């Protein structure tokens, strides 16, 4: 299957946007999952609902909210512009932000599921062995959550690759800057007889996600199924 140079550019941009989005949002997703799984504060349910927002609302609405917030005159956009001289509007960074936000709920849920399965007795054991809360988190909790983080990252990456509505609404459809695969597919759909291009680009998207899947399986295997499987999530005996 041959792609034109311009199409390769689209693929590279998509991979960049999705990759940056997932890597950037992973720590945030983890922090949110942590708060939802372990926190016992008031407003937990509200936070949970907010995290789900990007799923519940049509992407176009999310894109529009981003546009309003990040416009030069908007609350966040204005601040970013004044303090850092940066704008996300019509930029690939904005596309990454949109992708990250759309992927966030999926990642939070997956990580939270793993986090809730971590046996607190193992964390206690780490504490008696001289590890403070932070070391316990890094050396016990985090690795035991690896399956959820990996699942979340794969899910989020796939979701980012397919993100369309929020992206086109927020950062428009600018070739070379914000035209990711779904936007290119949309463009092809607008042209009579564009179906062949649609198929070609769709296959590329699928191949990209397949690569991510293979990578994640490889990572999972390398960790030797830290998973809870076998290890029992707990302790031997």
């Amino acid at each position: 299957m041959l792609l034109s140079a311009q199409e390769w550019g689209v693929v590279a941009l998509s991979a960049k946007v999705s990759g940056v989005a997932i890597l950037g949002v992973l720590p945030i997703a983890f922090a949110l999952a942590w708060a939802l799984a372990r926190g016992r504060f008031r407003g937990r349910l509200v936070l949970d609902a907010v995290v789900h927002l990007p799923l519940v609302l049509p992407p176009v609405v999310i894109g529009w909210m981003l546009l309003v917030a990040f416009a030069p005159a908007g609350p966040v956009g204005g601040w970013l512009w004044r303090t850092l001289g940066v704008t996300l509007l019509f930029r690939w960074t904005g596309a990454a932000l949109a992708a990250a936000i759309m992927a966030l709920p999926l990642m939070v849920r997956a990580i939270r599921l793993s986090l809730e399965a971590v046996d607190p007795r193992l964390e206690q054991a780490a504490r008696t062995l001289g590890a403070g809360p932070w070391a316990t988190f890094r050396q016990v909790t985090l690795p035991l959550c690896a399956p959820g983080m990996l699942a979340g990252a794969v899910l989020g990456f796939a979701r980012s690759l397919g993100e369309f509505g929020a992206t086109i609404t927020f950062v428009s459809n600018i070739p070379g800057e914000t035209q990711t695969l779904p936007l290119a597919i949309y463009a092809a759909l607008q042209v009579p007889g564009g179906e062949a291009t649609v198929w070609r680009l769709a296959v590329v998207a699928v191949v990209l996600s397949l690569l991510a899947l293979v990578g994640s399986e490889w990572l999972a295997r390398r960790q030797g199924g830290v998973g809870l499987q076998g290890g029992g999530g707990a302790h031997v005996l």
Partner: protein
Amino acid sequence: MSFDIDIVLARGGREFAVRVAGGPGITALVGPSGQGKTSTLDAVAGLLRPRSGRIAVDGAVLFDAAGGIDLPPQVRAAGYVFQDLRLFPHLSVRDNLLFGWRHAPAERRTLTLEEVTGFLDITPLLGRRPHTLSGGEAQRVAIGRALLSAPRFLLMDEPLTALDPARREGVIALIARIRDAFALPVLLVSHQQQDVARLADAVVEI
């Protein structure tokens, strides 16, 4: 007095008043199932906050409800062999053994990995994951992990149950040696009267 414990514990809606005044050496904690032995060890390790009272080991106050003292577990430096072992499933046996060792200050490290694995006969297991161990193998790894963590005192919750007679002897000798060589106070929970008789310098009924 090595262990100076006078606390009230609450667990599962019940309250347990526990009083231990152990002499130097090994203090055995005995008593019927479900009477709060494990809970007491948890309290000494800093994993369960007593309702009230005071816990001191070797003169150092770890907990004092009245004085508002409650040291976090990582500072207490208990070498705790859990009744349910709690090996880390994501780490190899070697990394399990060295987990506490790596967190210990260098000057307090008195034993080496080689010594401990040799004594406990677990050297061939170093590369394995915990879920592949037999019951007795896992128990010895748990003991080794506690010993290597450069503890200030040992809490051992039925540490010999899965060991065959020969290895039981070995571990008993090892515990006695450690007590003597490093003057380490040991709080031992055991249901085996002969183990208690052989090891304990003092016995506390709960």
